[in-house]
């Protein structure tokens, strides 16, 4: 494993499978009698959030706390950042406070990369979403969820047919998923109106389509992305209604998908926009499971980046048993 997790391009298939296997093991352990593991006792994890994201922040916080790390939450709102402090100065301040790992969410693409490589700090950097670039732990939890449902919870995702639908242009979730899923052997198709696909997307390791209906019968996992209503102001699509008619997942569209297929969404969902309520509430939607898997996947990332190994977990269990 590398020292940082900045994007899914950093991960080999072996790395990714190690994280998923570790997450699985941690999931099993945390349902046992010892819900809180002592692994990262005395280590400090800083959640450095320059963007509002309660969901991702509490997921990382829960993950770090279940591994007994000390957690410092640093939200840009109400902090010195609003007074104009630079990312560099904020980072060096946190470093001086003894952060072993910095979990960063930032509106600027590449900010975690700069944090890790500009020589400002020495600890591990975990990207919790940067601009429209990457969100690697989201991709990991998505892969975990797909593997759990469609591959018996082991190995890679060879041959799995995944469709990602929506605002690909502005989506860090889509970028990270394309990278990780193809690393794990899945076949990815991106479905969006042409305005919401980036120029250059033809070089991505994914198929491109403008029609959701064409792909429903051959999809094992369908990932719906959040589409912001405001996008129509920049002429990406004429109206929310039209977007929803052409690209929204309705119950009738879902009925054309294979029996075993699942529906994912990184949340928060826009009911009635990209996903109908009856789909979101159906048993095929695994949106809540994604949230649960997010915690154990992030536990695995923290554990592995801060020096643990999967075999180390075995020792840990033995220790717990004899303690």
């Amino acid at each position, binding site marked *: 494993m590398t020292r940082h997790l900045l994007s899914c391009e950093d991960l080999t298939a072996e790395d990714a499978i190690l994280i998923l296997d570790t997450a699985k093991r941690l999931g099993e352990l945390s349902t046992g009698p010892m819900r809180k593991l002592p692994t990262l006792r005395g280590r400090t994890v800083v959640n450095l959030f320059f963007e509002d994201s309660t969901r991702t922040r509490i997921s990382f916080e829960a993950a770090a706390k279940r591994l007994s790390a000390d957690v410092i939450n640093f939200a840009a709102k109400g902090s010195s950042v609003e007074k104009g402090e*630079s*990312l*560099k100065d904020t980072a060096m301040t946190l470093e001086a406070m003894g952060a072993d790992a910095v979990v960063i969410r*930032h*509106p*600027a*693409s*590449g*900010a975690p*990369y*700069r944090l890790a*490589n*500009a020589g400002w700090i020495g600890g591990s950097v975990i990207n919790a979403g*940067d*601009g*429209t*670039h*990457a969100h690697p732990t989201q991709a990991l939890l998505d892969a975990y969820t797909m593997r759990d449902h469609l591959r018996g919870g082991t190995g890679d995702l060879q041959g799995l047919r995944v469709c990602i639908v929506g605002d690909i242009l502005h989506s*860090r979730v889509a*970028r990270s998923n394309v990278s990780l899923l193809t690393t794990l052997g899945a076949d990815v198709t991106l479905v969006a109106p042409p305005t919401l696909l*980036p*120029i*250059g*997307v033809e*070089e*991505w390791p994914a198929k491109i389509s403008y029609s959701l209906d064409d792909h429903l019968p051959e999809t094992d996992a369908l990932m719906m992305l959040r589409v912001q209503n405001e996008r129509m102001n920049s002429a990406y699509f004429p109206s929310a209604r039209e977007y929803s008619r052409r690209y929204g997942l309705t119950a009738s569209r879902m009925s054309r998908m294979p029996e075993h297929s699942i529906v994912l969404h990184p949340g928060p969902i826009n009911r009635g926009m990209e996903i109908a309520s009856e789909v979101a509430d159906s048993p095929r939607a695994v949106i809540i499971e994604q949230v649960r898997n997010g915690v154990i996947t992030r536990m695995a990332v923290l554990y592995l980046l801060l020096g643990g190994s999967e075999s180390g977990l075995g020792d840990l269990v033995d220790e717990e048993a004899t303690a």
Partner: protein
Amino acid sequence: MTTWHIAGAQPLGGEPVDIVISDGIISAILPTGSTPATNSTLIEARGLIALPGLVDLHTHLREPGREDAETVESGCRAAALGGFTAVHAMANTDPVADSAGVVEQVWRLGQTAGLCDVHPVGAVTVGLQGERLAEIGAMADSAARVRIFSDDGHCVNDALLMRRALEYTKAFDGVVAQHAQEKRLTEGAQMHEGVVSSRLGLTGWPAVAEEAIIARDVLLAEHVDGRLHVCHVSTAGSVEIIRHAKARGVKVTAEVTPHHLMLTDDLVETYDPVYKVNPPLRTARDVVALRAALADGTIDAVATDHAPHPSESKDCEWAAASMGMLGLETALSVVIETMVNTGLMGWADVADRMSIRPARIGGLQGQGRPLAVGEPANLVLVDAGATWVVDPAAMASRSRNTPYRALTLPGRVVATIFRGRPTVLEGRLA
């Protein structure tokens, strides 16, 4: 006044000669090995190429307003070290150079520094706001004798204003230098729009946003028979539009920066803002087209777009960083690397694109002249065989934002002679 005897220099890479300079002009060109007059100072130049002093059409000297990034004096030191004897100071200062008062201030600061000619560029519109014409005529008539007008950093988007500027400047043979950037197509733009931007998740600056404005502007220039100069051409498509317009006889000239001749958008993968520049670094295909266009003369000039920024404007995340790169001290080396050492251009072409044509575009007297008896003594001596490693800390500029950090580049400026007086000797400020 001192007499200088330059021994054994090769004008435009030709046969070695001795060049004698006195009273600010080239007073004699003698066979090499001639005995220097007793009152003259010898400059040993065996093996060095002599070129007319370089002329930059596009320099940001930052003064007045951002003296933390550069001053006229520090910028002139960088210019002299880079082999320049004239620079054009861009108008986007604070206050903006949109009045006779400000351009005369910059002009005088240049005179005081005394290291090269500083020709202020005047703003096209008041405050670079793109709303109404600045007092272009007053700037032209001022002591600074402004001939180039540009809202650089901003595009004159309004077609009517652009038309009027192209018409109005005809009265004193001025030229409108356009920063071609369609506004709506580049909202929030961070880098060239293409495969790399799609992967990095950075908002794209599409080539068409440059090309669409150039296409419009050459048509406007043709319609009113005005003079258009296109700043920092960066795309293969722009080259084709300019080539086509020139073939029709449109009065259009164009410049390319050294960095667009050498660097490509994949460097942005480091997210290091030292590579953030406007227009952005393009693709390898664009670089090939720009080199070919400079070699065949479709692009008239190399212009540095020297854009100093203080460290805090670059030591940050990409989106927060300022756009721009240093250029004066590395321009000639980059041109040697990309154009001479590749066999695309000879030394006469280098002189043409870096001195003669830029001087003509700027309407300068006494710059960009041939190395001949009776001509003003503005020249540069270059050791073409030498190489050097770019060290930002060693630069004369007040800023450090060079994209060539730690690169080994060919060609060293050994001496720069400005109006008969060395500003640089043995590679150091004289």
